[in-house]
């Protein structure tokens, strides 16, 4: 199978066909797993490094499980005890060291926009997969979200997806806006005006400041956490005030269309952007997203590391 991308930075240069290929392969892997692992593709003799310079639960473990399903060797980069952290070794020396040891892929998460591109500039033989770079992009999240909705609705064409919350700081919002729109959905954004980029027009989305109004139109209600760790000034006065204005409560959900679903990339802050009861309800796809994540990441590793079959 010819996979035309060398690295995975973001979905902006992906065609709809590229996305559909990933959906198809993810689905095949899902079905292979259901039948006890028969027919799972194998990517023999390859090694991948989970190079996580920023905290993560879902993404890192998801990549590790995905890799192991395909027989790929996984190294989990131990950030705190690395020579980089303790002995002043530079990032590029670290990368060249890993490359010389023969790793095939580096899955990188960092708080710096453009870190995956930097890695790709420095490395000749290693594939770089972006697991989230600062507030820029999180393409594997977007792909697993698309897969989840594809399995739920059969497709995204003409669906209305509402993304609500801390959009300015959200790499999930950015990649999902690109991905959902490429698959034919209309995206509406909502949230406090100071959490939405001043010039959101560049995204090609509609902004609806009135969350209940936006909820009424939406097929998908996609919620985002407030990324306090990225803000350096006071943007909302309190979690409670945020919850009152933009929290997805049971009452709010009652105003949605029948069949509307609730999604969240995780981690969730219960009681802030999402009420506990909503997170745990039947309309919530949150755990389906997590399940999809393993399949989609396995599909990507298969495509990027050149498996056959």
């Amino acid at each position: 199978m010819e996979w035309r991308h060398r690295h995975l930075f973001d979905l902006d240069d992906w065609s709809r066909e590229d996305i559909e290929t990933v959906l198809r392969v993810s689905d095949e892997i899902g079905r292979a797993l259901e039948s006890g692992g028969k027919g799972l593709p194998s990517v023999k003799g390859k090694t991948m490094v989970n190079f996580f310079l920023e905290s993560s639960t879902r993404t890192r473990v998801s990549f590790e499980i995905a890799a192991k399903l395909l027989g790929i060797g996984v190294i989990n980069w131990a950030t705190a005890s690395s020579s980089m952290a303790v002995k002043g070794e530079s990032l590029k020396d670290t990368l060249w060291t890993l490359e010389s040891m023969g790793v095939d892929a580096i899955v990188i998460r960092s708080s710096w926009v453009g870190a995956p591109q930097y890695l790709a500039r420095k490395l000749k033989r290693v594939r770089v997969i972006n697991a989230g770079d600062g507030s820029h992009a999180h393409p594997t999240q977007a792909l697993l979200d698309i897969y989840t909705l594809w399995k739920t609705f059969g497709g995204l064409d003409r669906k209305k997806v509402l993304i609500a919350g801390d959009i300015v700081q959200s790499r999930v919002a950015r990649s999902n806006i690109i991905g959902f729109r490429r698959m034919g959905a209309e995206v509406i954004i909502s949230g406090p005006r100071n959490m939405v980029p001043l010039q959101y027009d560049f995204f090609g989305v509609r902004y609806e400041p009135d969350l209940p109004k936006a909820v009424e139109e939406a097929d998908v209600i996609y919620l985002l956490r407030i990324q306090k760790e990225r803000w350096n000034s006071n943007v909302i006065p309190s979690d409670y005030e945020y919850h009152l204005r933009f929290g997805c409560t049971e009452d709010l959900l009652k105003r949605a269309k029948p069949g509307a679903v609730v999604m969240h990339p995780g981690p969730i802050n219960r009681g802030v952007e999402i009420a506990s009861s909503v997170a745990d309800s039947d309309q919530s796809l949150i755990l389906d997203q997590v399940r999809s994540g393993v399949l989609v990441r396995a599909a990507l590793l298969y495509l990027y590391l050149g498996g056959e079959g």
Partner: protein
Amino acid sequence: MILLKGVKVFNGESLLKGTFDILIEGKRVRSIAPTGSLTIGEGVRVFNLDGKIACPGFIDIHVHLREPGGEWREDIESGALAAAYGGFATVVAMPNTNPPIDSPELVRFVRLSGERVKGARVLPAGSVSKGREGKELTEIFRMVKEGAVLFTEDGSPTVRTDLLRSAMLYTKDLGVRIMEHPEDPYLSESIQINEGRVSTLYGLKGMPPSSELIDVERCIILSKELDAPIHITHVSTKEAIKAIRRAKEEGVKVTCDVTPHHLTLDEGKIPESGFDPVYKVRPPLRTEEDIEALWNAIADGVVDAIATDHAPYHLEEKDLPFEEASFGIASLECAVAVVLDAWRKRERLIPLERLLKLFTSGPSKILPEGYRDLGYLKEGGVANITVIDLDRVSKVDVSSWKSKARLTPWNGLSLRGWPVLAVVEGVVFE
């Protein structure tokens, strides 16, 4: 004795008609005469410069020479030489060194260091506040006596308005002015790039144009109120240049400079290049609209000078992921070419004389009265001359630079229009 033969002459005000020979004796310009009319004795070093343009030695009022405290990036020796090879006869060294140039002793250090090295003449600038802490005024008078030619907190804005106001008043009668790096300190915290299309699409924190505008307007208000001059450096936005234009029309004593990079590079380069930190600079690269506004301001005489804001770094400080890399573009040895090359597209809008003033008489007017002559080329004046060849085409090659910097956004680019010779107090650099 040195003879520059067959040149056109731009004297700081206008391009003279005809071609000339310029005879230099020691540190002075002995004669400027119609070509062939001088009788030359033996032992004169002759440069045949057919059709090239001799100008007053270019002046760059904003360079970072990193000494003391940052010598791995640049020092006064490498910086002065780089400037001369870049076509500059005079540079003003910014004071945000380590320690900062905040005392008469340190001004003297910079001045004496400059006198000991070959290259452009280095004029020291002093900081406005002690330690650049923004609280106490430096001993401005004593520093002026040691040779400081302007005062600035550059690298940062002058945060406390009361300090800025006090400094503007204090320097009013000392013949030196304050240079402001225009930013609102809180709107610019942790920024990486311009706030606009690129910051929206790529999630990098942006500096809004209002940040620059707010400080520019603050400076204009104070300048008006105090009837004191103020110089605004590296103006980068259309909003700020518009405010300066309006203030000048009202007769406010505000002057400004722009950098070669803000005249030629837009923010689109950042995502296009895969977030290459060679484009990371402060103030950040802006939009094409801002670039056009700056060129229009040059055409209308609103811009007083071009200053490079030469910001050299060690490779390891720039060769990092974008957000980790240092801010700054090094350009002394290609700046003139960058500007001349870009001017070509706007030749009809901007007469050459207007452009050349930005390197000569324009910046000389920002310096104290006693340095005014540096902006003019005349008989009897100091032999600071920059000869440019508008048609010469050459590639920018950092590996040949005298500067310690090994990174510049224009590396490898072919540019048209280069300085071919600089004379600094009678010493020639080719």
